[in-house]
């Protein structure tokens, strides 16, 4: 028997999409039956009470979680999001309902051994509920009590060799697209970059030392499968410098209808036979392609590497061999000054080995932002307040037309004093000798 009546939530058990309500009920029943005979360390009926409080919110149209909650583990300044229910008498099972962020492996590949071990810990010491995964990338363990936090941390570090993720004004958990592991478009090893930089900056991740949060994300190419340009302050996006590789025989196979355009992504509708002229040549944003005499040509100097032609004919067109990445900075959600996507800062860096060129850019930016960033000011906002020029200067990037969508259209231009012959120290009396009052 369910502990609380949930007539509203019950309606979310119907329909084809996997129902979170059915799943939570399944967990509630599992805990009630307790087939493993566990001595549950938080209330057995925690998932029942979660459904109960959620049903109450569905009736009120208002959240029933108190503001904030400051909990954690010794040695770290973040990693756990504290939460307390505002009706603890009615729902004692979720009086404490803290979330633990666990750092996920890059690309989110798992073995079942690892996941089972994690489930065993969480079964005993938590609610049995999770988010796979948080938007930033963490494995999210949803709901436990304060006394269990150190126990969970001990178990995951000692028995699973796994650390917490980030929260608060620090480096949050980095994330990558699956990159070279299973994609022919990957211009560098995004998972290795994500892992390497996560390890390099463990201190910055666990102990808040920044004006505000800071996120890294690594996309292997401009398709942006981890959405780095929209969801990270420091976005690393793979690219190449030389020509797109063309396999003319494979192009012919597309034209002949042997290969499906876009790998079959549009197979649910009849879009007619593949028309290379209409679907590729004429859609290229910079008119860099030619289709003449059954041969495809690309003017490398005009190509902006948007990926469209490669996406459309993946068996015929391939990324170049001279690979690296672009660094873009400043993406953020709207609060406070409005949403931003990342802006191009370094058009091309090497992205191999220990990723030293990328780290140098990171550290130069941090040196500046940690000093100059205001309280709770994201990098993107600091850039707007203090200018892109300043960021380019601290990064050591020579400004170029690549850094702008268009030049400014107001003439309110600052010059450095040393750029102007004679400097700014002028004598009015000298001026008056030439111009009477």
């Amino acid at each position, binding site marked *: 028997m369910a502990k609380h009546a949930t007539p509203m939530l019950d309606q979310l058990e119907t329909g084809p999409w996997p*129902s979170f309500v059915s799943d939570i009920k399944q967990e509630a029943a599992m805990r009630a039956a307790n087939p493993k005979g566990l001595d549950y360390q938080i209330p057995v009926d925690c998932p029942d009470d979660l459904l109960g409080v959620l049903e109450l919110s569905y009736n009120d149209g208002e959240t029933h979680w108190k503001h904030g909650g400051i909990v954690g583990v010794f040695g770290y300044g973040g990693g756990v999001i504290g939460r307390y229910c505002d009706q603890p008498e009615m729902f004692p099972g979720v009086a404490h309902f803290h979330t633990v962020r666990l750092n996920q492996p890059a690309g989110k590949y798992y073995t079942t051994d690892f996941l089972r071990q994690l*489930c065993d810990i969480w079964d005993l010491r938590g609610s049995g509920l999770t988010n796979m995964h948080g938007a930033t990338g963490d494995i999210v363990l949803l709901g436990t009590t304060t006394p269990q936090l150190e126990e969970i941390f001990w178990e995951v570090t000692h028995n699973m060799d796994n650390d917490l993720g980030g929260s608060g004004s620090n480096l949050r958990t980095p994330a990558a697209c699956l990159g070279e592991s299973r994609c022919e478009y990957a211009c560098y090893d995004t998972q290795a970059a994500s892992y390497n930089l996560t390890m390099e900056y463990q201190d910055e991740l*666990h102990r808040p030392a920044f004006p505000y949060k800071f996120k890294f994300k690594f996309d292997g190419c401009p398709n942006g499968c981890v959405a780095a340009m929209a969801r990270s302050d420091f976005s690393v996006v793979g690219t190449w410098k030389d020509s797109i590789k063309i396999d003319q025989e494979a192009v012919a196979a597309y034209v002949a209808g042997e290969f499906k355009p876009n790998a079959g992504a549009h197979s649910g509708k009849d879009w007619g036979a593949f028309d290379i002229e209409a679907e590729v040549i004429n859609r290229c944003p910079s008119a860099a392609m030619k289709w003449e005499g059954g041969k495809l040509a690309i003017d490398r100097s005009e190509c902006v590497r948007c990926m469209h032609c490669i996406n459309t004919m993946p068996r015929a067109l391939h990324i170049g061999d001279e690979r690296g990445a672009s660094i873009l900075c400043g993406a953020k959600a*709207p609060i406070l000054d409005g949403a931003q996507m990342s802006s191009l800062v370094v058009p091309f860096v090497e992205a191999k080995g220990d990723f030293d060129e990328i780290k140098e850019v990171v550290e130069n930016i941090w040196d500046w932002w940690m000093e100059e960033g205001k309280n*709770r000011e994201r990098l993107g906002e600091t850039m707007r307040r203090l200018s892109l020029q300043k960021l380019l200067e601290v990064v050591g990037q020579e400004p170029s037309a690549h850094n702008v969508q268009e030049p400014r259209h107001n003439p309110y231009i600052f010059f450095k004093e040393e750029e102007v012959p004679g400097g700014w120290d002028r004598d009015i009396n000298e001026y008056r000798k030439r111009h009477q009052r």
Partner: protein
Amino acid sequence: MAFISSGYNPAKPMEGRITDIGPREFTEFLPPVIKANKGKWAYHEILEPGVLVHVGESGDKVFTVRVGAARLMSVTHIREICEIADKHCDGYLRFTTRNNVEFMTDSEDKVAALKADLAARKFDGGSSKFPVGGTGAGVSNIVHTQGWVHCHTPATDASGPVKAVMDTVFSDFQNHRLPAPVRISLACCLNMCGAVHCSDIGIVGIHRKPPMIDHEWTDQLCEIPLAVASCPTAAVRPSKVELEGKKINTIAIKNERCMYCGNCYTMCPALPISDGEGDGVVIMVGGKVSNRISQPKFSKVVVAYIPNETPRWPTLTEKIKHIIDIYADHAMKYERLGDWIERIGWEKFFELTGLEFTQHLIDDFRDHAYYTWRQTTQFKF
């Protein structure tokens, strides 16, 4: 319930403590065929909705079956995922950036058995546990947030509306009929945790009433200057009030300047803002993150308010379905929702979808607003 120690000694908290070890190295978890061909993939194909094959330069193949997931899931469900991965995939699996699950195998004949197994698994309530889909030009999973399940600042729920929308657009999760992929995301407040500001369709929880002020607690619970600095429109200022004969430091809010973003509540627990009848959601459209053909775009607000209609948000789901259907009928191949709207013009988008254009949709936030008005005589009647 007897306390079971993990080995941690609360009397000596720093003893034996392990820190700064980070995540596990990802290579430990790569299936053998992935490990062998990493960085050497030649091409891929989508065999059918939800099923991909990647072919290595070596000729090796890996078949991937992508299945939908509720993101909020129990350990029982994760164990079932593990059981499937053990049975069909030698104990390997992965999760995607949109929180789907991917099962991989190295031969095509294992795919049919895997699919049949997945299709047979249903929850007691009847919903599918592992629907196959989410590839190509369709609708994949909805990137979403905490909602009433865990967060203190939401103006709507996350898991509920996501289930309601996915049920409504389910056929597009399992089909490739659209001109391009349609990414739907949801955030339960303006913090927009996730991807709402850059999705083809974004759903965001909003408030419509200024915060209440718990004067008695303001100075005790909050750092008032932080709350003042948290307001994008400078509606918050410090002030004094008399309460039971005592003068106390508190906050004043200019209601006519407040646009109910709730950021001051994030900073100050004495400024609660949520309200059953006031709160609801907006719909935004036209964002994208990829650089394919056109540059990344922000999504734009096209419906300023829809009430929270628990538990299934019928007005919201109906409008989203309608937008997708109109887009599917009118856009050219490869055109993302935002690309299509920019080609036909916003007036045409409102005409075709029948969405009402109201004054709320005109930007009035700082300098940038001007650039969103129309400085041209080009428009369609």
